[in-house]
């Protein structure tokens, strides 16, 4: 008997029955609250800001590079970025930015990504991995700028999963929920922003 068999045997013995052939999928889906987009937007912004993300809003995708430039200017950050390949088409150059569509190395200081969807309940970004969606872009650089279309806001985490299920063939290798810059409180319970991941998360809402 393998360890697996022995463990399962003990589980069955404890529960006093053989392993069931099938168990109904527990249905604990929550219906969306069907609130107007403006409420979602307000909630999302308020909660994201309470998690120390910063938020800007622009009318359309073409306005993103200028918004990025403005943010970098205000923060006094260099105008050099690694971006997801899907953002290559934007005119970064006119806003005085260099944007390289490649996975980051540890020295890169700014990473710009798109966002699969945003979750209003907690002000959270959902990013998933993929051939063109480098996970490290939102992880290694000290500043992460996330571009999020307003029509991609959902109420709760359940709806984000439902959206993934309807749009993707299968769950990606990595599904990352990001809620603000990385932080730690491991020394004296004092919250310090900027642990191993980014120190700044800036969200540019589009739409």
């Amino acid at each position, binding site marked *: 008997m*393998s*360890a*697996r068999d*022995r*463990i*399962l045997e*003990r*589980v*069955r013995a*404890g*529960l006093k029955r053989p*392993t*069931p052939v*099938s*168990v109904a*999928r*527990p*249905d*604990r*889906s*929550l219906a969306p609250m069907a609130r107007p987009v403006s409420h979602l937007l307000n909630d999302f912004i308020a*909660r994201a800001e309470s*998690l120390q993300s910063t938020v800007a809003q622009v009318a359309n995708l073409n306005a993103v590079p200028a918004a990025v430039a403005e943010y970098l200017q205000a923060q006094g950050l260099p105008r050099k970025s690694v971006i997801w390949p899907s953002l290559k088409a934007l005119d970064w150059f006119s806003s005085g930015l260099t944007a390289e569509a490649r*996975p980051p190395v*540890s020295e890169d200081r700014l990473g710009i990504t798109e966002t699969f969807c945003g979750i209003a309940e*907690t002000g959270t970004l959902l990013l998933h*991995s*993929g*051939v063109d969606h*480098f*996970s*490290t872009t939102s*992880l290694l650089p000290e500043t992460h700028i996330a571009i999020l279309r307003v029509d991609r806001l959902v109420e709760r985490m*359940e709806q984000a*999963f439902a959206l993934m299920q309807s749009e993707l063939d*299968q*769950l*990606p*290798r*990595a*599904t*990352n*929920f*990001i*809620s603000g*810059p*990385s*932080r*730690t*409180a*491991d*020394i*004296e*319970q004092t919250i*310090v922003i*900027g*642990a*191993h*991941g*980014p120190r700044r998360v800036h969200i540019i809402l589009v739409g």
Partner: protein
Amino acid sequence: MKIRSEQFKGNVRKQLADEALQSNLSRFGGGFADRRRDALVKVDDFEALRDRGASIRAEVLENLDYWLLKFEAEAQRRGTQVHWAETGAEANQILLNIARNAGVQRVVKSKSMVSEESGLNEVLTEAGMTVTETDLGEYILQLANEPPSHIIAPAIHKSRDEVSALFEKHHGTPRTDDIPSLCEEARGQLRPHFLAADMGVSGGNFLIAETGSVTIVTNEGNGRMVTTLPRVHVAMTGIEKVLPTLEDLSAILRLLPRSATGQDITNYVSILTGVRDEGAMDGPQENHVILVDNGRSRLLGGDLHDALRCIRCGACMNHCPVYQNIGGHAYGWVYPGPIGAILTPAFLGLEKALDLPQASTLCAACEVVCPVRIPLPDLMRVLREKELTQGLRPWHERLSIRLWRWLALHPGWYAFAARWGTRLLRGMAGSDRLLHTLPGLDGWTEGRDMPAPQGETFRDQWRKKQAAERKIIPIRLDPSPSEKKAGLKK
């Protein structure tokens, strides 16, 4: 991990006498409880969320074998290799084999309490690998060569000065009392380790049966690093950590961070499924999950079954006055506080942790905060019952309980004993009407006086008063057992 739970009382004495620790505990101990309270104010009906959490976890346990097999099948379908380990030692061996087969030299770890159970770090180090803990708290403790004292804030017992001293010793950097600089220093030290590691070892906060995924929850981002950068990822987690669906995960995630740190959500929640996609630039090429039993399956269906609902949020210890006074190390193993007082004897054997279930006033501060409504005081009482019925309590304790019970069931004798007992105590008290020592009860009188009984017992006084007022005169002595039975029949 080395087991020190048998020396609980000695550990307690040491911790109570440790001034630095006491100062750290009183300065940082209350923070989580305050933050949790503040976070709950913003939630509509947290009690309903707790009900939901409790029922989700309870349902999982009812069909644990089914969900584990489902998880295994789905994980394998996505290219994850699933291993089963009966003990911590077995889990270490499996991990060692994976590492050797993959030619691993450098290992980075994010927090895994199961790997603390198994003592993984020593095993890997002995096998010639370098292991680096990357959770800041765990990293500090690795430098200090100490076990964690809390399940979500492992180094809560250390002050900034102690951390700074450790950093000075190990990094050669000047002392500082600035906490952000210390964090920055750790970031700088650890980044190269992430980049150079061949293998990442993580725990698994939850396993999702339906998708074969491992979920990891961290604030620092180290969990993401460990599961993204190295070419091999191994998650080591307990068999009870499975959840059926992603919706269940959503429900549980509304509870975990609020209960733990008072956050509405943890910074990073990563759901990891399978291996690097073809053509992708990041993610591990090899992904393993080790499902560790180590005493868990034995609890199923028994009277400690409910303890397996635990989602390791730490709220019970954050609210436990005993934990807050003695700190986590006193408990002597991986899990401190109320849940530790249950899991340690449950996993290791009652005889290894006799004092732990006794280390509670049953004040229930833990029970009212537990997000999955584990009846922690009841479970401690269950363990006390086992200690008593298995003859694991000292003979004088067993005898005095029996004697006391017999007296309490015989009111006449009880009144007699109370009358003479209180007279004796009054005689022993000084003019201040206090007892400064009591034979056999030095546990009390070492640190406290005992106020002497006020006078005659209440019932003696009442009887006299009643007699004087001619209300009720007859003094009923102990009814015979047959009378008692008769009294109970309708």
